[in-house]
């Protein structure tokens, strides 16, 4: 029930129930429970609204009395912020109500949980009550998700101490969601009371909004900008924030914005607000349920109400009972953010704004800072000192996607041409002109915003200043008014001081026996014939400037002369693979249009020529060398598309042997599986980078082919790897062709060098991604496409000041697909803080996870996997412990309190820990692990998000008349209903899971067969059927495919079929077969870790 659901908050309330029911069923798998919960829900809902306003019901807290100590853990999300919406629709209920899902027993708990929510709300409400107060409450909102605690809990529920503590805590815990675990009693582990963060309560906050006009001002900024996190903080913080934020967010928008924000942040603004007014009463309702709250015996003001206390006794046992619905739900957070931020454009003018979540579809307006599509940070408020940073352990990192694709409505970076003199730069640090440069002396000089050095303005660039000190041409110059823009580079920025030639694409096709026999060669040749007309073009150019060349190979290489003047292509065989060279110059790289007929003839003949081949051995390194040499000879950069099938065992440089050994897993030598066999490829990669030769690799292995080694060059040159194990024409052709098309067509830059400059005080110290570095500052990429991301970590080397904040400037020098040399500049300004709370309030968990995953995935190269996992857990525990210690209001040690912005950290972290790289499943091959390791390393935040926490959509809930997606549900088997069909996607695969009890009609509509048993195993496509359901499902799949940079493999899974094992692997909240912890268990573990740290 409570599970996640419907996205629509608004309606939720009213509808919720129905929706829920449905949900529940699926979730529970048709357990009887549903019914009950619903009821509860209903009740809740009703109350909810009321609640929100009522938030104030401080009484609750107390009541909750989380006295919890003895009691189990309770989760509180400070988040009072949670959007009311959530509550209404999904979460709110879920969190609170969550309990039901668990087991029959849970039912009762469900109730309980609900109540907690109520409490949460209360909290919010509280803040609302007093302007000043508000904040405090916010910070600590508790949603004691005492959920687990069955019966007793309910009553116990939360006591929110908040009110009292409010003020103090406020400041600290803004967004902290807390899970109170019973500290004292050993039982703690058992009973995890999750104060479901359910900000739903938050709705309450809205109230505050009203009341608290004042505070908002400060927050306004937050509001508008900071999506979820801010929101979280917003609400609660509101109050506290004001203090804290106040200063930084000088923005004016204040009040109005504020409210919005709050709304946004919490739940959705609208609904709530309205409600608010009336809400109070609502609260009562909650209260009613929670009513029981009275229990709040011990309530500390701050402390999280831990229902547990009451339960204490019972709890211990129940510990395992923790209600999954009571713990922070990714779905809920995503939905909240979506509803809060999805509608308004995100305007980047303000320093340190936290953008909406990556899962939210929002429009960006560049007003001086780079769009979050280009840069996302783990925190938008950086500690001023390194001590603080160390204390918090929150990594400071930016995830940069310099050539990211924008939404069509958004404008591409403007191209600025400063003529022969080139871009204006700081004399000392060489930073490029940007909106943060300060013009002084009437515009004759400017002071660098990074290093403070003063530089003369070149005469041709001089402009007068207006009375505010702004240049008069401020709005005419992108580099003065925008966060992202491009400069046309001068010849000084080019290799050898020569403007580059247009790049080239070289297609290198394995024509060994396997490739030919599987039909791959024919397929590629056929596809290339048409694909060549879609090479990337610059702007509005008529035809692509990119030249193409063709090579086939097995043990030897075949080059083709496709010069337009020839009647027939000519093949040139190079068998001297030990010392590769390019046999021809003229006619190898050609313009597609000029040589069209020759190329067509060639592509026709290649499959014929090798039809009878019996050569099974292949070479690999020489293939790359050949491409590299060809580009060298043509003096251009370019990309190699290599289609390869097997481990290169033929006698040649870079020859490999099969060294796959599963026995190494979980030993100290496991790391060798991720390391290349030989350093040969590293050196080759270096040469490739120097020439701007990017390598894209399409692998079609039937057995181990050592991705870890073959991928080295691809990886270090900024290329992509695509892997199609056991490639079969019928099933994999679409996926491969789509990938190929996209890969060929996507926007790409060549011969790129990226440097990240920062204000004095911090420094980019570490880089993650697919690139090569020859020194410590320049990230070199032979090729960089619109999907590639570089994660950069910063460290302090000095102090920052709150006043000036911190600036990042990412400058990317690259060659466009037409051969134009350009500089793309992205600027981002961040706030700095002296209070840890500010840091926690402005973090972004998705980005954090992106960083942590990359960090860990690199770690496996040098350390045993176990060490890496432990380090991850440890770091996160420290982050959360620091929060608990410094920001959260004092509360019982047994309570788990999570910062609002990081309340998903545990669940996501668990997903990372359970991922195939860090904890391989049984079916996972060494190649898969190496493959994924490399993939993740250049993923952006959105991709890591869905990769680690897949999206699970109940297809049967889809509204066939609208084009929206059904609301996602949490990744747990218990959320699946036998009577429904679900879709799960993680960016690589799409599973369609069919329950055994699905109505025949649906099966007929979707699969065109009459019964469940007739759905054939291993199906990989959906038949095209003319009925609304089939169309809807296919359109959903198409839509998802569009969103991802790779075409996902579609796998139809029947419940209780063999394949289901595979599918279950992706239900990441559950315990995994390979030993990965369930969410609940992990949360307990985390809590224990934190407590250990705190004690």
């Amino acid at each position: 029930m409570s599970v996640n659901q419907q996205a629509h908050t608004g309606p939720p309330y009213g509808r919720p129930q129905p929706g829920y029911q449905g949900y529940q069923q699926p979730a529970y798998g048709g357990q009887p429970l549903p019914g009950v919960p619903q009821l509860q829900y209903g009740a809740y809902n009703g109350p909810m609204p009321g609640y929100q306003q009522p938030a104030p019901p401080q009484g609750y807290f107390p009541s909750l009395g989380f006295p919890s100590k003895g009691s189990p853990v309770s989760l509180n999300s400070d988040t009072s912020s949670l959007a009311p919406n959530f509550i209404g629709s999904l979460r709110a209920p879920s969190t609170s109500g969550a309990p039901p899902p668990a087991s029959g027993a849970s039912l009762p708990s469900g109730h309980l949980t609900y109540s907690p929510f109520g409490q949460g709300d209360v909290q919010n409400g509280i803040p609302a009550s007093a302007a000043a107060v508000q904040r405090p409450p916010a910070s600590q909102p508790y949603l004691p998700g005492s959920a687990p605690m069955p019966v007793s809990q309910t009553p116990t529920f939360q006591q929110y101490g908040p009110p009292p503590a409010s003020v103090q805590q406020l400041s600290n815990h803004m967004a902290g969601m807390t899970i109170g675990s019973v500290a004292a009693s050993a039982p703690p582990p058992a009973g995890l009371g999750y104060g479901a963060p359910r900000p739903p309560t938050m709705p309450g906050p809205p109230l505050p909004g009203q009341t608290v006009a004042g505070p908002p001002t400060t927050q306004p900024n937050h509001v508008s900008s900071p999506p979820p996190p801010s929101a979280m903080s917003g609400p609660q913080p509101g109050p506290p924030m004001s203090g804290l934020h106040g200063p930084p967010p000088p923005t004016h928008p204040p009040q109005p914005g504020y409210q919005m924000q709050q709304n946004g942040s919490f739940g959705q603004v609208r609904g709530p607000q309205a409600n608010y007014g009336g809400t109070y009463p609502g609260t009562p309702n909650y209260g009613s349920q929670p009513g029981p709250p009275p229990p709040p015996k011990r309530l500390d003001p701050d402390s999280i109400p831990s229902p547990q206390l009451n339960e204490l006794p019972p709890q211990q046992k129940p510990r395992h009972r923790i209600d999954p619905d009571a713990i922070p739900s990714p779905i809920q957070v995503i939905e909240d953010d979506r509803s809060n931020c999805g509608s308004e454009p995100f305007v980047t003018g303000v320093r340190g704004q936290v953008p909406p979540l990556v899962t939210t579809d929002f429009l960006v307006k560049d007003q001086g800072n780079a769009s979050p599509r280009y840069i996302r940070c783990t925190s938008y408020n950086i500690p001023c000192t390194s001590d603080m940073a160390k204390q918090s352990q929150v990594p400071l990192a930016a995830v940069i996607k310099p050539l990211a694709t924008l939404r069509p409505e958004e404008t591409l970076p403007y191209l600025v041409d400063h003529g022969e003199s080139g871009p204006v730069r700081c004399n000392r640090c060489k930073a490029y002109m940007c909106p943060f440069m300060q013009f002084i002396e009437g515009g004759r000089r400017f002071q660098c915003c990074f290093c403070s050095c003063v530089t003369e303005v070149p005469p041709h660039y001089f402009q007068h200043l207006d009375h505010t000190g702004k240049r008069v041409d401020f709005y005419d110059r992108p580099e003065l008014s925008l966060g992202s823009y491009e400069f046309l580079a001068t010849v000084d920025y080019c290799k050898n001081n020569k403007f580059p030639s247009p790049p080239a694409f070289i297609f290198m096709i394995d024509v060994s026996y396997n490739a030919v026999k599987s039909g791959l060669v024919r397929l590629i040749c056929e596809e290339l014939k048409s694909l060549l007309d879609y090479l990337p073009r610059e702007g509005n150019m008529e035809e692509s400037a990119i030249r193409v060349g063709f090579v086939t190979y097995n043990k030897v290489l075949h080059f083709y002369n496709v010069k337009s003047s020839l009647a027939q292509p000519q093949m040139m065989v190079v068998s001297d693979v030990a010392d590769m060279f390019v046999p021809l110059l003229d006619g190898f790289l050609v313009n597609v249009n000029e040589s069209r007929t020759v190329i067509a003839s060639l592509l026709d003949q290649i499959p014929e020529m090798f039809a009878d081949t019996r050569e099974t051995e292949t070479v690999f390194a020489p293939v790359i060398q050949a491409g590299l040499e060809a580009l060298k000879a043509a003096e251009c950069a370019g990309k190699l598309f290599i289609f390869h099938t097997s481990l290169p065992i033929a006698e040649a440089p870079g020859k490999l042997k099969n060294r796959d050994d599963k026995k190494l897993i979980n030993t100290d030598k496991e790391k060798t599986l991720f390391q290349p066999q030989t350093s040969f490829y590293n050196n080759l990669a270096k040469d490739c980078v120097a020439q701007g030769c990017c390598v894209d690799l399409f692998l079609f292995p039937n057995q181990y082919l050592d991705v870890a080694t073959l991928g080295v060059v691809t990886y270090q040159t900024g290329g992509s790897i695509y892997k199609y194990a056991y490639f079969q024409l019928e099933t994999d052709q679409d996926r491969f062709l789509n990938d190929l098309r996209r890969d060929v067509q996507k926007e790409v830059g060549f011969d790129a060098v990226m440097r990240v400059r920062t204000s004095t005080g911090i420094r980019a110290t570490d880089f993650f991604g697919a690139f090569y570095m020859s020194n410590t500052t320049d990230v070199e990429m032979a090729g960089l496409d619109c999907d590639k991301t570089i994660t950069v970590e910063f460290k302090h080397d000095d102090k920052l000041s709150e006043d000036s904040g911190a600036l990042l400037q990412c400058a990317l020098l690259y060659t466009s697909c037409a051969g134009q040399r350009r500089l793309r500049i992205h600027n981002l300004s961040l706030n700095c803080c002296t209070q840890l709370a500010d840091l926690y309030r402005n973090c972004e968990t998705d980005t954090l996870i992106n960083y942590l995953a990359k960090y860990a995935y690199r770690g496996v190269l040098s350390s045993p996997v176990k060490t890496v996992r432990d380090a991850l857990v440890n770091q996160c525990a420290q982050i959360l412990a620091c929060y608990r210690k410094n920001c959260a209001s004092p509360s019982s040690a047994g309570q788990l309190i999570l910062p609002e912005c990081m309340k998903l950290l545990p669940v996501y972290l668990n997903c990372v820990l359970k991922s195939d790289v860090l904890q391989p499943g049984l079916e996972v091959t060494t190649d898969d692990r190496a493959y994924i390791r490399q993939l993740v390393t250049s993923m952006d935040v959105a991709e890591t998000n869905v990769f680690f926490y897949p999206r699970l959509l109940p297809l049967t809930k889809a509204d066939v008349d609208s084009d929206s997606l059904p609301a996602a549900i949490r990744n747990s088997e218990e959320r699946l209903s036998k009577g429904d069909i679900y879709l799960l996607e993680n960016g690589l695969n799409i599973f369609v899971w069919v329950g055994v009890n699905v109505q025949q009609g649906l099966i007929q509509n979707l699969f065109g067969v009459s019964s469940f048993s007739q759905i054939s195993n291993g199906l990989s496509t959906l038949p095209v059927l003319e009925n609304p359901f089939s169309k809807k499902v296919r359109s959903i799949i198409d839509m998802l495919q569009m969103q991802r940079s790779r075409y996902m493999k579609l796998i139809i899974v029947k419940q209780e079929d063999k394949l289901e094992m595979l599918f279950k692997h992706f239900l990441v909240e559950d315990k995994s077969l390979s030993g990965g912890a369930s969410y609940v268990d992990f949360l307990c573990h985390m809590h224990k870790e934190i407590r250990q740290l705190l004690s």
Partner: protein
Amino acid sequence: MATYLEFIQQNEERDGVRFSWNVWPSSRLEATRMVVPLACLLTPLKERLDLPPVQYEPVLCSRPTCKAVLNPLCQVDYRAKLWACNFCFQRNQFPPAYAGISEVNQPAELMPQFSTIEYIVQRGPQMPLIFLYVVDTCLEEEDLQALKESLQMSLSLLPADALVGLITFGRMIQVHELSCEGISKSFVFRGTKDLTAKQIQDMLGLSRPAVPIQQGRPLQAPEQPVISSRFLQPVHKVDMNLTDLLGELQRDPWPVTQGKRPLRSTGVALSIAVGLLEGTFPNTGARIMLFTGGPPTQGPGMVVGDELKMPIRSWHDIEKDNARFMKKATKHYETLANRAAANGHCIDIYACALDQTGLLEMKCCANLTGGHMVMGDSFNTSLFKQTFQRVFNKGFNGEFRMAFGACLDVKTSRELKIAGAIGPCISLNAKGPCVSESELGIGGTSQWKICSLDPSTTLAIYFEVVNQHNAPIPQGGRGAVQFVTQYQHSSTQKRIHVTTIARNWADAQSQLQHIEAAFDQEAAAVLMARLGVYRAESEEGPDVLRWLDRQLIRLCQKFGQYSKDDPNSFRLSESFSLYPQFMFHLRRSPFLQVFNNSPDESSYYRHHFARQDLTQSLIMIQPILYAYSFHGPPEPVLLDSSSILPDRILLMDTFFQIVIYLGETIAQWQKAGYQEMPEYENFKHLLQAPLDDAQEILQTRFPMPRYIHTEHGGSQARFLLSKVNPSQTHNNLYAWGQESGAPILTDDVSLQVFMDHLKKLAVSSAA
């Protein structure tokens, strides 16, 4: 046999052999005192209209170390059906097939007129001829076009079943696969890397790989294409393909920047060609025909760097030991030449460029394998075109004038041993009883391989008389030599060509005049010249000249008639009279003088000198000069500056050049256009006569000579002036009568001075 001259001539016509001495001194000591060694010029395949080959196997002496062929000099016992080998005196039974022989029913090989006989034998499979074109693409467009046309034309000249292959090279080397349809396919090699034969064969897929048979795949009849078929195809099958392929040949596409030479990988290209044939058709007649338009500039065998500012080595550099690539390159090509020769493949070099092309380094390829060497200015000249065409000339019987894979086996009577050979051959290292310990030329063997030869190919073979002094004149009074040449005829038949000759022994002390009279001074001059040139390849020029001078002086001392210390008393008999003059011209010839010649030119001249027959060799040593005038019919005149007169037209044939020189007056007349006037038709005829004669020479000679038409005062007149004996120079202009022709501006000594010195030295008792 009226005179020795006639005897010599007759022998030459019948056997293709000319000995320096036609009566042999009977002891080692005497023989050495003769100065000119006992030696002969052998033209193994000299064309004879009257010699139909016999269609059976030769009969061999049964002694394993002898194996001489039954010949007219053998004693035959017709009744016992026995014959005695005239070399080892082994008595042999005739084979059964000879059961019917008798005094009146002799097989051809026993008849005296068949001292030279040719057998056709049926042994082994008949292999088609193989032609592998190795074509440089770093040429000027015009040159390449001309070359392509020549090559295309040549396809029509090849026998239809001949196999043909194509390798092109520039910066890279491409081995073209001729069999495939559709896409034309070639294997490409980089020009900087030397590859072993094994590597080349592996890379070309020539070595049969252990074919990994796919399991579960039906075992199709394993394709058994003749392994080489991809690269070497019968002309009639790939005629069209190859013509197109040649037509599409492009210049080497790699850019050549200002101040650089194109990168030309001749060394590796040849290496691949040799490796390819080695792997596919060992011991089968094949021609690798290298067409190059410049020096190798990279990889093994490079002769000069690609920087134009570094000129290619000159004689000066070589003397100063300043030619940094020469030794290595030479070694590279020598290795290749030896490999090719070992497999019976020959390498032709057609080098056309204005500058040197590295013939010096590459010469051994042609020299050791019997290949042709042709040097021209451009492929777009008739010199090249016609020369190339002439390679495929057919003889009177409609057969190609080329033979392959010949093995020359020389057998001698006991009193003689073989000291060596000089010519387009390599040693087969066949040690035997008749091999002398002292070497002249390529020695230490009694067998040589000549990978390619034509009817004019001539070897110089040197002997040593081993009879002890005071020993009696050997039994029978005659010494015998048998030359057995087994070869692959152009019709692909295997043939054995046997020549057996005998000469009388004479006691040098009592019968010196016989020996003297039987001296063949022409042959001797050529044989000595070959020795000199052979030495010049490895020794300093002046040393060779000194050696030649000493030999000449010794010869004069031995055979001249004079009173001691009285130069004026010096006389030479008729049979020696021309010899000093030959030596005079030889000393001035480009074979020994490198001044004014590039190393390439020297190599080129020497190459031809070492293989042409006696007549041609003599022309090379002492060019022929004809005069045309109104004073009489055309006549040969002295090769002397005094022959250059204003009212004469001169025609000089140096073998390499044909020079027509109009005397001063004639030239003026011609300018005035008299030849156009009907009343001066005789002048027109006069002008035409030398042209016609020149044409005749041009038609027959291989390689085609450079044709020069010049006149008094013309710049090209230098070709003439540098050859004539400078009897009149600026130094002695007024010492001579006014009559005579043109003074030559030179410090070279004239024949007169040379002779004076010679006499003086010869008669000197101090010498």
